[in-house]
């Protein structure tokens, strides 16, 4: 079936991306540039998204726990739900929307304007030059973006909980500290984020690299990248959660 063959092509492409990742000086220059483009420039959306997620989670949790008289334990919800599930997944989805689409569009445009062909003619491996830096930049930056998401969500949650809803300040931070463990919550969250970042970058690169060299092809590639990467992120989220959190 054609779908299985496409999956196979994507797998082989991913393998070639990994093979083409050699730590040369040129690679690091490109890597730095990509980290800025897809990491640093995603900061606004991640920060604002994190803040609003923290606000709504606190509000919802407060109302839900009121029936058990445990509304000042809201930080448990924030700690566990945010660190384990919401932060990696939402950061990855926001990343796919912003950086994944830009990767796909850039590579599609490079294909459409024959830059990839030109690189090949000059004897430079286009995958090593264009795709591998983006992949490794994504793997490195998505965990950091997740951490920023979490910190903004926590700050917003503190504001909503302590200043607006009236939870006691000490209780908030103490319960949060008690409910979250570094080894059991942080590290799996960062591992998940790294996997999501790599998946998003691979999907976006594959679709962009193999786009049809037309304007329409580029836009189709961008759409397809976002949709497929989002679905894969959600699927891997379930698998990783089941394996990491027992």
């Amino acid at each position, binding site marked *: 079936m054609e779908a299985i*063959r496409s*999956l196979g092509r994507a797998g082989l*492409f991913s393998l*070639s991306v990994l093979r*083409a990742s050699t730590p040369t000086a040129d690679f690091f220059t490109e890597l730095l540039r990509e980290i800025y483009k897809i990491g640093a420039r995603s900061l606004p959306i991640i920060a604002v998204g994190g803040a609003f997620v923290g606000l709504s989670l606190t509000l919802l949790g407060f109302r839900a726990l009121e029936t058990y008289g445990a509304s000042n334990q809201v930080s448990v919800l924030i700690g566990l739900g945010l660190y384990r599930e919401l932060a990696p997944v939402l950061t990855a989805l926001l990343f796919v929307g912003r950086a994944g689409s830009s990767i796909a569009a850039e590579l599609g445009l490079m294909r459409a304007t024959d830059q990839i062909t030109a690189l090949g003619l000059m004897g*430079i491996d286009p995958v090593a030059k264009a795709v591998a830096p983006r992949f490794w930049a994504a793997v490195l930056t998505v965990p950091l973006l997740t951490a920023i998401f979490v910190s903004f969500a926590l700050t917003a949650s503190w504001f909503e909980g302590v200043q607006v809803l009236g939870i006691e300040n000490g209780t908030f931070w103490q319960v949060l500290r008690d409910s979250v463990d570094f080894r059991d919550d942080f590290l799996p969250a960062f591992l998940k984020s790294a996997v999501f970042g790599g998946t998003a970058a691979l999907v976006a690169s594959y679709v962009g690299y193999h786009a*049809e060299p037309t304007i329409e092809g580029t836009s189709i590639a961008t759409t*397809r990248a976002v949709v497929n990467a989002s679905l894969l992120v959600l*699927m891997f989220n379930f698998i990783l959660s089941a394996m990491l959190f027992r």
Partner: protein
Amino acid sequence: MASSDSRPAGTRAAASRPRGPGLEFAVGAFLLLSLASLLVLAVASTNGKFGFSRDSYDLKARFTNLGQLRPMAPVKIGGVTIGQVSGITLDPVKFDSIVTLAIDNRYREIPIDTSAGILTGGLLGESYVGLQPGGDVEVLKPGEELVYTQPAVDLIQMVGKYMFGGGAGGDAAAGGGAADSGSAPPAGDAPAAGDEAATATVPSASPAAADAPASATPDSPSPTEPTP
């Protein structure tokens, strides 16, 4: 992700090397199979803490009231999980429930006078079967039934009993209520609190309990008074 392969002609770049359709199909099928097996593994691994593959043997126990016990609830001795509940059926003749306990093969020396009770982990926690080992030399063989069982304790019924019981029952409730008010939040697993619930303690969460001693014991001074 079916897109046309725009492999530009004449490039020697490694990534654009044309590959046979057979290899692509094989890789795709392999990826699909591994993804499917990962999903199955993920679903199976979240399905029960004890695991299907551990060797276990079955014991039975009859209870008159199960409370909130469900299949796959843990079976513990002194707080250590040694097995899980594998099945619950109702005896159509005697109308008590027959609970099948799957005990790990490592624990084969359970005496025949062991008693089983349905305890709760904390006030809002899940129900589990707690075994209290007896002292007999003979041990239970697979398939045998535990003779001594205690039914689950229904907290609401007990509250009602003490609210309208009065006298010594009300004093014990007041003492238990004061002791419980300093306990940990219900999110933690506290088998000690669960055991206390079995021995006549009113949960501190219900404000009705605070009113109960006041109305039940109008003028008799209680030895352990709640906070004035």
